[in-house]
């Protein structure tokens, strides 16, 4: 789960990392008030779950509170990578020296948390990693204790020769590792960490991604979810144990299993079609899950055909068929439905669907995908004429 910069800064602050005070506001007027209250030169930053905010015009400097209000007004009108900006963070601008990169991730291969540092902060760290990987220094740390102080010092010395400065950076690294563990982050990043001209080190920007599995178990983490960033469909899907991600295409996909769902999307693309979504109905699927899945998918007006790809294992094909029939009875769905059922109770499922006359059958995954693409095309043409 992504959280906002201001939330990440609150967490870092709680763990003793220095961050600038600031205020999250929803209107230009509030932004002006906040700037007046904080005083001095301000930065106005869009709070959206998207990278590249700066390039998109989502981060602006303001010398006066009037200017802050004006700049906030502009940013609050933006849409960054498809997401409308609903909140801005108003925070003092700092006179800063060198910019460093500090970040903690979970290293899958070593199965340990890992701290990464670079003297090249403030810029896109992926670029540094790609072009000059030797400028990034990495160290695994203990998943209970966090980064030991001595490890932090060793790491800090790789990016800062000055003994006193390195000690200060090491202190931030220890706290960053503890914040990372404390909130079950998959990523906790300070980019840049800056040395203030007045002395001391400060996290100028902050980014934390949380482990969804941990969020599901901890109400304090769940509380960080931004209602503005919520998607009703995704919420509904989550509630019913479905995994749903909207895409841009016209073929609604219902699949059991994440790997098979991805492979189905890929196959749609392979044959020239365009999937409208990723949707995994999971293992033990009940008819209700299928009804919900169809509700979510048919809510998207772009969808021209629906593709079921079910390999029954724990998932019972008759349950899926019942779900389709129920959904058709309860709501009017006038879209072609292509169904591929294999495995547990496939025959029974097919019989249920045949009786309702609702579905076009396909024997294999590939036939099903090709048929769905054909149906979507026909349907679309039919509508246009």
């Amino acid at each position, binding site marked *: 789960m992504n959280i906002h910069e201001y939330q990440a800064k609150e967490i870092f602050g709680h763990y003793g990392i220095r961050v600038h005070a600031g205020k999250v506001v929803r209107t230009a007027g509030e932004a002006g008030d906040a700037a007046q209250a904080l005083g001095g030169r301000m930065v106005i930053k869009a709070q959206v779950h998207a990278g590249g905010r700066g390039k998109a015009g989502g981060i602006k400097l303001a010398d006066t509170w009037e200017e802050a209000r004006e700049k906030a007004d502009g940013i609050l009108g933006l849409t960054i990578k498809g997401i409308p900006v609903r909140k801005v963070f108003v925070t003092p601008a700092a006179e800063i020296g060198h910019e460093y990169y500090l970040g903690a991730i*979970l290293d*899958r*291969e070593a*199965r*340990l*948390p890992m701290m990464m540092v670079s003297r090249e902060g403030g810029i896109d760290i*992926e670029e540094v990693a790609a072009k000059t990987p030797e400028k990034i220094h990495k160290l695994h740390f203990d*998943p*209970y204790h966090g980064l030991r102080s001595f490890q932090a010092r060793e790491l800090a010395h790789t990016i800062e020769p000055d003994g006193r400065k390195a000690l200060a950076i090491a202190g931030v690294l220890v706290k960053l590792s503890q914040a990372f*563990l404390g909130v*079950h982050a*998959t*990523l906790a990043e300070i980019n840049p960490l800056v040395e203030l001209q007045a002395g001391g080190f400060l996290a100028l920007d902050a980014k934390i991604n949380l*482990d*969804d*599995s*941990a969020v*599901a*178990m901890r109400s304090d983490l769940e509380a960080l979810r931004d209602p503005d960033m919520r998607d009703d469909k995704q919420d509904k899907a989550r509630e019913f144990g479905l*995994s749903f*991600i909207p*895409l841009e295409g016209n073929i609604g996909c219902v*699949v*059991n*299993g*994440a*790997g*098979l*769902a*991805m*492979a189905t*999307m*890929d*196959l*749609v*693309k*392979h044959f020239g079609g365009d*999937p409208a979504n*990723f949707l*995994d109905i999971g*293992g*033990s699927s009940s008819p209700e899950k299928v009804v919900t899945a169809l509700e979510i998918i048919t809510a998207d007006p772009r969808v021209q055909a629906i593709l079921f790809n079910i*390999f*029954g*294992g*724990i*998932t019972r094909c008759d349950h899926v068929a019942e779900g389709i029939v129920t959904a058709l009875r309860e709501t009017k769905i006038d879209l072609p439905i292509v169904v591929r059922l*294999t*495995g*547990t109770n496939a025959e029974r499922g097919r019989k249920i669907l045949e009786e309702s006359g609702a579905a076009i059958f396909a024997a*294999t*995954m*590939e036939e099903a995908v090709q048929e769905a693409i054909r149906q979507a095309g026909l349907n679309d043409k039919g509508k246009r004429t």
Partner: protein
Amino acid sequence: MSILIDEKTRVLVQGITGRDGSFHARGMRDYGTQVVGGVTPGKGGTQVDGIPVYNTVAGCVKETGADASVIYVRAPFAPDAILEAAHAGINLVVAISEGVPALEMARVMQEVTALGTRVIGPNSPGLISPGKCKIGIMPGSIHMPGKIGVVSRSGTLTYEMVWQLTTHDLGQSTAIGIGGDPIIGTRFLDVLRLFKDDPDTDGVVLLGEIGGSAEEEAAAYISQEMHKPAVAFIAGRTAPPGKRMGHAGAIISRGQGTADEKIRALEKAGIPVARIPSEVGPLMQEALCSSGLR
């Protein structure tokens, strides 16, 4: 032959009195697996369809001689269940549970590794040595005994591929779902090492997906050390970056872990990569032929 499990494997089921646990305990037994006992704390002394239930894994192991365990408990209790099995001397722990926090698994794996126990999963469909033993949730009927090893990060996609191998008359030595989570007990590389040393595994099908770099490492291992024919398929070529595609581990993070990278690495290592699922069977047949194994 097969890897990890066979007809002698004695399986205990953790969480056997739960809905999934009892259902799959029966399913495994019906397939022919020796399901010797189950564990549900507080319910020791009862039975599930004739399978005795114990309060602790240690107690179950002592009475039944179980050497493998499969875990169906809910995610918050899974780390403890894995450690309980490992500390009770279980050699192979298969964690079906989905939704275990990755950091908890990192902590568990530190301890488990020191104990020398092998963990499969979490978020794994399990593993099967067709005709001998099935531990997990896969439909046994689609499998066929044979000489192809299958290793996968997925569940149903594995079934799809196994079914295809079976229809192409390519039986399986062992098929393993290693699990869709970022931190898992047994990685591609670990399984490939076992397949390499298994004289009755002629070739390997590797089913990867977006996220991480395990496929890249597998590619290097296959070309440099395994020296057995291998065919791969990678799911998620069209997955958008930054989104978690169902599996906790299936996410393209900051442009890393894309399907294209993985496919490039595999092909560079000389491993044929199927573009669509139906190519896997033919590619495997071809690979076996050119190796003189068919």
